[in-house]
């Protein structure tokens, strides 16, 4: 998961064998979890409405596979776009913040505001201003994912090692040079860390945004589907949808990891 920061960059570390082991381990845990779940349902004789058995959930998933696929795809798209926007915007804000301590201190409380404001509470306002659009869902989701990026990247940009600071001063680096040559590379591991957190938040954000935004017929993500199923107390289908949302989270999380390994590896090495 987080080994890039500590492991030597041996090309054979991530061998196929190891990946196979990982997959096996994950499946083993899943198997244990599913059996445990089933036992709980059976032992306590829980009604389906409260907690369906894994098998019932699987059936529901199969029955609603097209809906899950379609809406899952839409939600994934919302989450991905939002994460991307959050990285860009958050990175930009952080760069601004890194340029002036005063600016940072003056504006940081307002970034905390974005983080603290319950999206559930401002979603209606967003809808009023921006309408029942994909755009609105993205804005809401970006608000949710922004803070981890800003917090981490700002910290990264202001964590330049003192020896590098000296170097920059010696050679009269301009702000811009300082930023590109040292600050941004220093911030990369922090960005990756933040983007990982945001990748999960993006999925949850997209779903919550959809609770509010996708009432219209033309835009129907997992969140909208889940609201409907909840109203009909279709607990089994609801749980299938939850499983899909987790899958989306893992996809985004894995994507962030993969991209960072492919393109940012050299910045992740601690020497």
């Amino acid at each position, binding site marked *: 998961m987080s080994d890039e920061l500590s492991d030597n960059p041996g090309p054979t570390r991530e061998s196929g064998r190891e990946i196979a082991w990982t997959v096996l381990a994950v499946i083993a845990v899943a198997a244990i979890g599913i059996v445990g779940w089933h036992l709980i349902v059976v032992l306590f004789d829980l009604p389906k409405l409260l907690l369906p058995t894994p098998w019932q959930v699987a059936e529901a998933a199969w029955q609603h596979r097209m809906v899950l696929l379609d809406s899952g795809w839409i939600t994934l798209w919302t989450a991905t776009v939002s994460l991307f926007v959050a990285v860009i915007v958050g990175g930009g804000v952080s760069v601004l913040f890194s*340029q*002036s*301590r*005063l600016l*940072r*201190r003056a504006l940081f409380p307002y970034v905390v505001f974005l983080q603290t404001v319950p999206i559930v509470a401002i979603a209606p306002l967003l809808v009023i201003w921006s309408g029942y659009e994909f755009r609105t869902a993205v804005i809401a989701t970006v608000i949710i994912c922004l803070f981890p990026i800003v917090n981490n990247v700002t910290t990264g940009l202001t964590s330049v090692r003192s*020896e*590098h*600071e*000296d*170097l*920059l*001063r*010696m*050679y*009269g*680096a*301009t702000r811009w*040079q300082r930023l590109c*040559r*040292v600050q941004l*590379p220093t911030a*990369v591991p922090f960005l990756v860390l933040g983007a990982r957190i945001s990748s999960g938040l993006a999925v949850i954000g997209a779903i919550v945004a959809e609770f509010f935004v996708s009432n219209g017929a033309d835009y129907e993500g997992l969140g909208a589907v889940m609201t409907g199923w909840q109203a009909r107390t279709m607990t089994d289908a609801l749980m299938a949808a939850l499983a899909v949302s987790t899958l989306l989270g893992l996809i985004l999380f894995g994507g962030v990891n993969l991209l960072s390994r492919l393109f940012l590896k*050299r*910045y992740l*090495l*601690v*020497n």
Partner: protein
Amino acid sequence: MNAPSDKLDAGTAVLCRDATVTYPGGVCALDRINLSVRQGERLALVGPSGCGKTTLLRVIAGLQPLTGGVCQRSGGGTQRSGGASQRSGVVTQRSKVETQRADSRAGDRRSVATSFVFQQPALLPWANVLKNVTLPLSLGRRRDRPSATEMREQALAAIHEVQLTDAAKRFPHQLSGGMKMRASIARALVTRPEFLLLDEPFAALDDLLRNQLGRLLLQLWRHHRFTSVLVTHNIAEAIQLSERICVMHQGRIVSELDNPLSTSDPHDDLRRTSEFGVFFGRVSDTLEKAASPDMEGSFA
């Protein structure tokens, strides 16, 4: 703050008056240092570990704010007590702001191109040797910045000078300790600086390389007549590479010795001459005397 009265004489490169540095912990690393370095002079600083050599070098470079006294550098900024929080983004006192501006402007203009070989290599871990060495060429606001190919060529030449050509594409974590220091030396030399500050540059190197690089330095000096301040533990090295030797002890300059051998061309047999032996002994004795208990008492 650059009051006219502070102007340096034409021939003076550095002038410290009562320069004092007390670190936050309470350690007095520099204790009322008075020092002047002439343009084009080669000065060596020797002294026991922890006596303040690195601190003095950083003060001269403008990296270390003073807690007392003044230190001026020709074409550079003025360090004085009060300009304490140089790395802070928020400066509240007007005088501080000005001091800082003067400093950074000076850094930008680089009216005197300065290079510093730090005691630790301080390479950028995400850049290979070539990129690290190219760095100083690509920084600053110089109008006449060389093209990318020129920069690359100059960097490769500097890398060749420190015999790292084979490792030019390696990253710092793939280098040995000595190789890192050599990359750091190449980075300092690549700009052909007019002012060179060297903090134990050769400590991690073998004698052969040390001599070769020493010769390289002298050769560059004959061409460019840069001003240089060299910190070293190696008295022989100090004698071979400098015109004047300042002996430090516990934050003070306890002795300044003019080097009688400085004009000679460096040749390997220099060390075997009797003048060398005599002067070596003098420096050595000064150092030991400074460290002896009674002297220590006078500094404590």
